[in-house]
């Protein structure tokens, strides 16, 4: 559905994305995991053709068979109206507080799909029903502040479905929600992707959410994909030191049991030392050099190629090339 090859996004002197290659097929669900500054949101924007004006973008983006690299804004706008949709972290910020929910969702149906008012209304009710909004008739007349955060996110998903997208990009869609509400939203996204044969790109810092929502995963650090492959395999046995560190640092995931050790001291969490350096100070070689627990002498200078591993996995780390 969408394929990126060697896509880079640069601001003066710093690269927010470096040579990102990935593809998502129809009906496939790809997770993009990373911390602040990993470039995951910029990647989402690049897929929407919405990188900031100040940025320079290089590489190939092929959307539904059409090469979009260097395409003018007009072409992207048409794609966004027909093929690609995006939902965000904060549903309240994405809804006009003065507009009834019904009006909000009907607007693109009237403008882009050319439906009449009654047809648009009927379609809106269908969409509300599809995304699991109870009592859709009543919701049409309500305002964003009158419904819960989870319901607002559902309205936004309904809004994104108005263009019948073949690709849905969800940037931290569950971060602002309570855990059990987040679970329901993830279930909904999975169901929609399956039923509509829609490609889903699920961007999140939350490993647990990505684990549930996706089949394949791409782990990002410093603007690069450092590891990728089938979600269960990557999370069960990560090969890149960063992925390992990330999984270890998250309580309740790495397999360690909380509590106290033999001499009564509370068990510490394994950590990744330091913090993500600013883009402009990232090492030229492996982006993770300097924080890596198993760093080799040439890591900071020489850039590791992504090493292919069995069952469609890859990781960009020199250790794998050394035959370990």
């Amino acid at each position: 559905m969408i394929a990126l090859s060697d896509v880079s996004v640069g601001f003066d002197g710093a690269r927010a994305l470096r040579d990102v290659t990935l593809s998502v097929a129809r009906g496939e669900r790809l997770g993009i995991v990373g911390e602040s500054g990993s470039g995951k949101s910029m990647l989402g924007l690049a897929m929407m053709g919405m990188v900031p004006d100040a940025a320079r973008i290089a590489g190939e983006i092929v959307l539904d068979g059409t090469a979009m690299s260097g395409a003018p804004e007009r072409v992207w706008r048409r794609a966004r109206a027909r093929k690609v949709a995006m939902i965000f972290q904060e549903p309240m910020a994405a809804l006009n507080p003065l507009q009834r929910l019904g009006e909000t969702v009907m607007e693109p149906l009237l403008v882009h799909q050319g439906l009449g008012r009654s047809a648009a209304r009927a379609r809106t009710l269908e969409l509300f029903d599809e995304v699991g909004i109870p009592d859709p008739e009543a919701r049409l007349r309500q305002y964003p502040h009158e419904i819960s955060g989870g319901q607002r996110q559902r309205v936004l998903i309904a809004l994104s479905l108005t263009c019948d997208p073949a690709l849905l990009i969800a940037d931290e869609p569950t971060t602002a929600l309570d855990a059990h509400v987040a679970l329901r939203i993830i279930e909904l996204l999975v169901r929609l992707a399956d039923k509509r044969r829609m490609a889903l790109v699920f961007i999140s810092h939350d490993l647990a959410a990505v684990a549930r929502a996706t089949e394949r995963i791409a782990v990002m650090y410093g603007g690069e994909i450092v590891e990728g492959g089938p979600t269960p395999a990557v999370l069960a046995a990560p090969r890149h030191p960063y992925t390992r560190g990330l999984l270890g640092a998250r309580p309740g995931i790495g397999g360690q049991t909380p509590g106290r050790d033999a001499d009564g001291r509370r068990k510490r969490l394994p950590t990744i030392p330091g913090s993500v350096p600013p883009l402009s100070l990232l090492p030229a070689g492996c982006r993770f050099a300097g924080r890596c627990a198993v760093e080799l002498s040439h890591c900071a200078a020489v850039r590791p190629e992504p090493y292919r591993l069995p069952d469609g996995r890859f990781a960009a780390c020199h250790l794998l090339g050394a035959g370990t």
Partner: protein
Amino acid sequence: MSAILDVRAVSRRYSLPRRSLLRSGPVLTAVDRVSFTLERGRTLGIVGESGSGKSTLARMIMAFEAPDEGEVRFDGRTLHTLPAGELRLLRRSFQMVFQDPWGSLDPRRTVAWSIAEPLRATGADQVGRRVDEALDQVGLRAEDGRKYPHEFSGGQRQRIAIARAIVTRPALLVADEAVSALDVSVQAQILNLLMDLQEELGLAMVFISHDLPVVACLADHVLVMRAGRPVEAGATAGLIAAPRDDYTKSLLAAGGLMP
């Protein structure tokens, strides 16, 4: 061991704005008869999602608000009946770390100024030396004190906020979602720092979070709250291994990798 914090059947209600002229507005019970005790040097984890009343409970423990019913006893003294002057002096013994590392430091004050604030407010001496010591304890350098908050990352700011909270050598630290806004790798560093400080200083801690796995890694006891009420409480290991309440089970499942 004696209880440093004794919360006895506290309730807090808010009246919501009235919807008609004739009837008074509905009443929201934010916290409904919650009780617990916390021993010196121990950690209680309070877990709940939005609307569970956990932050209101934190505000009552910090004596920002008085309970409508029940009482909060700190070191044997009922907080909301203390005279204002006495309460202000007692505040050096219980401190708080907030959720948002971007909002909990005054942007117009240097780091050292902010850390020294609790010392100045309670008339302590040797302010400069104790600020440097607190910075060192949270893994920052003394020179960092001369900088402003915007020069630091989120994790470093949370270290600064913790330094401010421990500079008076309190007996109790209340942490309300103190690591929720941080990246996973930074979150682990801050959790470890809290464990280090607890052992070093013998702090008692009330650690409040929506994230049960995070709470479990540093709490001795856990209290699960929903809609203002306690739904389950117990020693951490037992509660994690065999949660009795369905709500606790769902909170536990949400943090795990497997559906």
